[in-house]
């Protein structure tokens, strides 16, 4: 197994790539030619094998064979997901190409998409092939100068959205929102120096010290909040496991399979 997946170089590498593509395309073609009623059991069987690998890797005690081949399995998963990236790009080209062809409102944004796509892709490929070329600083400008800055700008918008969301959340409409408002006030004040200053007149070692805002805030975060978070986590964990089991055993209905296998 390790020999098969060991790094290859030169002609051997190209032969492996060509061989993998031929075998992959052949299998895909075979699956496409398979009648619908046979295709589903085949997919169910492959899904079962995939799930069985990860289940056994987890359940069999330490240092089992499945753990040793984990890098190869993970790499295979990455390769499959890389193929789907081409389909994603194809979709982007389709949507933006149509916008330009039909001169839809904002079609110039689609032109910007194509320009940015080809520019950053070319700079990236040339940078990898010739690291000392002008493409390296160009890629740095495009990625760190444009891409990262634009992402940070979008992220910073959250600050403004939090204000409007908080306004709506803290509007007092019923008893629950009053409770939420009071809790939020205690938490917020307890986490800033002003909050501590407001209740600093309560001696830190007195019986009533639990009324100090920083202590109340800590109590709410650590006990009621944590208990609820863990309760949700347990529910989510069980739900996630049940769905995983249904998909593994191809029992999922309604969306992924419309009829019994």
């Amino acid at each position, binding site marked *: 197994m390790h020999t098969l997946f060991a790094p290859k170089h030169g002609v051997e590498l190209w032969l492996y790539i060509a061989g993998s593509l031929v075998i992959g395309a052949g299998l895909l073609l075979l699956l496409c030619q398979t009648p619908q009623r046979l295709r589903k059991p085949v997919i169910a069987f492959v899904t079962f094998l995939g799930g069985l690998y990860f289940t056994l890797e*987890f*359940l*069999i*005690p*330490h240092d089992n064979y499945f*753990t*040793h081949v*984990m890098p190869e399995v993970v790499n295979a998963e990455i390769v*499959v*997901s890389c193929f*789907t*990236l*081409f*389909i*994603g*790009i194809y*979709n*982007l080209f*389709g*949507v933006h190409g*149509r916008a330009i062809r039909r001169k839809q*409102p*904002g079609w110039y944004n689609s032109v910007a998409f194509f320009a940015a796509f080809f520019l950053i892709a070319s700079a990236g490929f040339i940078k990898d092939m010739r690291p000392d070329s002008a493409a390296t600083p160009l890629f740095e400008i495009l990625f760190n100068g444009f*891409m990262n800055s*634009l*992402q940070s700008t*979008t*992220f910073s*918008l*959250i600050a403004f*959205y*939090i204000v*409007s*969301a*908080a306004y*709506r*959340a803290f509007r007092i409409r019923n008893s629950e929102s009053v409770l939420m408002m009071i809790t939020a006030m205690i938490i917020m004040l307890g986490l800033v120096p002003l909050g501590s200053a407001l209740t600093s007149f309560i001696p830190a070692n007195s019986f009533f010290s639990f009324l100090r805002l920083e202590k109340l805030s800590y109590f709410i975060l650590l006990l009621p909040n944590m208990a609820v*978070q863990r*309760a*949700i*986590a*347990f*529910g*989510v964990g*069980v*739900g*996630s*496991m*049940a*769905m*995983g*089991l*249904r998909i593994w055993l191809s*029992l*999922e*209905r*309604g*969306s*992924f399979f*419309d009829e019994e296998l």
Partner: protein
Amino acid sequence: MESTTSYANTVIYIIEGLLVAFILINILKARGGKRLFIRRIQGLNYIDDAVGRATEMGKPIAFSPGIGGLSILTLQALSVLTHVVRKAARYGTRVIACVCDAMIYTIADEMCKDAYEAENASEFFNGNDIRFLSDSQFSYASAFVGMLHRERPAAVFLFGHYAAESLILAENGQAVGGIQIAGTPDTTQVPFFLATCDYTIIGDEYYAAGAYLSKEPTLLGSLVGQDYGKIVLIITIIIGIAAATCTALAPGSTAAQWLSTHFLEYFK
């Protein structure tokens, strides 16, 4: 090579075995015709209302399955997407689904195509309405927000895994006046959705969506099995609390030693 995840211990064998058994037994019971009760989940009831609203207004529906990759969480979001598409296909309403992962795009595309076919409405399916925007978190958020402002959907569904971009998406959904239904098991994003969306599905309700919407016996049986599993977990927690308290309060006592040997030891 060491696994990235830890291995199972004795307690995991027992609890997971019980959970699997409960789920499978209840699935078999449900398939055998046993009627199972499922409580009302308000947010999920309003999914159909939101689709109806979009149809009446003649506006599209926007759907985001989150920024997660191929995982159980995203597959559940796609399951809700299928339900929404099937409902919308009956009335010829457009559903614009924007995905953040190329692999999810291929699955979403196929599922939507199948959903339109299932409703005999293949003529309404438009491949360009299932869009791969970007696999980068904030690029996806920007593109989704742009789509919201251009298309001005009457209903916005935000299901799946979200991080910091959740508020950006939901606030802009509010800004365009769409009825918003969000569902996520991510506890850190739930407060943002509660503040900005009309209905929010949280925690394990998220995983109940498939069963609730489709009323499929297999899914309903699984849901009941999960509840039995939760009972097992609650009992384990109670025994654990008793064991830990006993060990802390009276470390040398016979009860503490017994609990430590027969219970806490198996968690290691």
